């Protein structure tokens, strides 16, 4: 099959959905003339014109507010917030309007917007261009958070998100844009809310997403080869709502769990997944759930600072050994 990188897969999804559905519009900072800070919206302006593909000023709240308003009128806006860290500037729009419109207006409207944003550490970009923000949305009923780890899933989940009738926060990991994989040419939608078992195993369940998933897979290979530990690796793909059933059925089999997520540990999605496992699979557990997260520290600038704070393969391997040896 043809290979594309993650960025190209996202770009293809946008091209195909805009061609397929005239209600789809794209707006954000530098999305039109430049094709996006990371190139995800490349070529859309030329193909679909300035009415449907709009550069905006640095006005994150207006971008999301405009997306909401346009969605109320039947359009399907895809808004780009250049870096996930800037979500704070439109957090109110997302939390108080996008998430609640359907509920507070008694089903009179939907807010089918997709908010794409580049998240994650590793770019040496420090405090305001490196954060993982999924936990910021866990506590907001009405929102959905999607987070693909591969080019294949990036395309299928972006198409699904555009077609979905709910407001969706679509997290792209900036360190994945250049990673390649097989991507079908035709448009396809993957189910939202469904995780994927990327690697079957019997001893330990590793639950991860985005960039950390690739570390988890590498660790699983290494531990299988060198230490005869069999890890089952699950890619969440959708973070809210996460796929409880897939996680719980794996835990039932392995009894040992390592949760891997790049955001700071306290109050992270790992905390929520861990709570659900304790509530619903307590008797299946052979060891306490282990969480691998970033430290509860901002992402600093000098590489040594960032590398110390963000988790990697060594921390994952250590956590796996810990639950095995418990």
């Amino acid at each position, binding site marked *: 099959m043809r290979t594309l990188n993650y960025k190209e897969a996202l770009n293809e999804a946008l091209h195909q959905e805009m061609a397929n559905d005239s209600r789809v519009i794209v707006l954000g900072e530098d999305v039109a003339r430049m094709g996006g800070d990371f190139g995800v919206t490349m070529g859309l302006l030329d193909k679909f014109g300035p009415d449907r593909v709009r550069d905006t000023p640095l006005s994150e709240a*207006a971008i999301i507010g*405009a997306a909401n308003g346009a*969605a109320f009128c039947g359009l399907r*806006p895809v808004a780009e917030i250049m870096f996930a860290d800037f979500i704070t500037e439109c957090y109110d729009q997302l939390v108080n309007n996008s998430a609640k419109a*359907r509920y507070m207006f*008694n089903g*009179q409207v939907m807010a089918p917007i997709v908010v794409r944003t580049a998240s994650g550490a590793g770019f040496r970009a420090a405090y305001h261009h490196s954060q993982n923000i999924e936990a910021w949305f866990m506590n907001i009923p009405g929102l959905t958070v999607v987070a693909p780890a591969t080019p294949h899933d990036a395309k299928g989940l972006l198409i699904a998100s555009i077609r979905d009738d709910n407001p969706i926060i679509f997290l792209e990991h900036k360190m994945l844009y250049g990673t390649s994989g097989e991507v079908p040419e035709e448009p396809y939608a993957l189910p939202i809310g469904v995780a994927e078992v990327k690697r079957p195993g019997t001893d330990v369940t590793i639950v991860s997403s985005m960039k950390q998933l690739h570390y988890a897979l590498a660790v699983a290979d290494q531990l299988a080869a060198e230490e005869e530990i069999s890890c089952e690796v699950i890619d969440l793909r959708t973070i809210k709502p996460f796929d409880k059933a897939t996680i719980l059925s794996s835990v039932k089999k392995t009894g040992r769990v390592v949760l891997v997520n790049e955001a700071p540990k306290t109050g992270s999605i790992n905390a929520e997944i861990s709570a659900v496992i304790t509530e619903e699979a307590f008797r299946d557990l052979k060891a306490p759930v282990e969480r691998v997260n970033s430290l509860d520290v901002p992402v600093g600038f000098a590489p040594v600072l960032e590398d110390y704070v963000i988790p990697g393969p060594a921390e994952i391997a250590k956590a796996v050994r810990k639950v095995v040896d418990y």
Partner: protein
Amino acid sequence: MSTDKQTLLDYYRKMVLIRRFEETMEEHARKGYIPGFLHLGIGQEAAQVGTMASFQPGDYVLPDHRSHGVCLMVGTPTREVMAEIFGKKTGTNGGRGGSMHVADFKRGNVGNNAIQGSTMATACGLALAAQVKKTKSVTFEFIGDGTVGRGEFHESLNLAGIWKLPIVYVLVNNGYAISTRATDAHPLADLAKMGCAYKVPGITVDGNDVEAVQAAAKEATDRARRGDGATIIELKTYRWQGHFSGDPASYRPEEEVKAWKEKCPIKRLREKLLKPKMADEAALKAIEDDVEREIQDALKFSIDSPAPTIADALSFVYVGREVTGK
């Protein structure tokens, strides 16, 4: 100004309707019928009626927290607006919105909002949709003087300025944001001038003169409908009550309140109608009696209507996804 008699009588009826609606809400809030906050627009009726005279089917309006009257002006039955404020199932939002979230999408009321200024951004999207879909629809955005301080005010005007969005910004300057005087919160006395930096023209008018308001709103609406962009109309007026029902408003001098009550917009129109004998006492009394019947009917309907059920608490959180109850 020479508005014809029939139109003036129509404005008179609408202003009396709003006044009696608000007084009735206040009375029943005191009696304990109405949950939560209630922000009354008594004294601001001319601003609401005069502006909404230009509203046409297909247009959108984003009323603010002090805009029950605006909600009535789109043609939603008085019963339904009132029942909503009572939190009843027969209300516009099935009782799940209340005073601060009355919406009637099919008539163009996109919902009032309790995050001041956040609909400034939504307005951009409604107007953008009109451009993309090539309709002639105009968006009316109601805000107060205090809301001029919000970031979205500036983001919205800037976007409206560059995209020539068909928006009428209705800036109801009642002199106060809760206890804070407009003159202490903003360096300009005439807030309509705030659009200057964004090339959004503004006009300041006497908000208690329904004909002056109507004329300003008509010009702004015509301009938007022609595709020439947004306008701010600043309507100088006064709220008679405290910020919310129950606020003693001890932050304002008695004489100030008294002086503004002398400038009552309804009294003013009444005198205008009586003086050159456009209408006689009996005709105006007949209108007032007719309004009273409408109010009493709506009141009985609101009191007699059922509350929402527990099942309603779980609907419309997501499209196509159930949430679990207790």
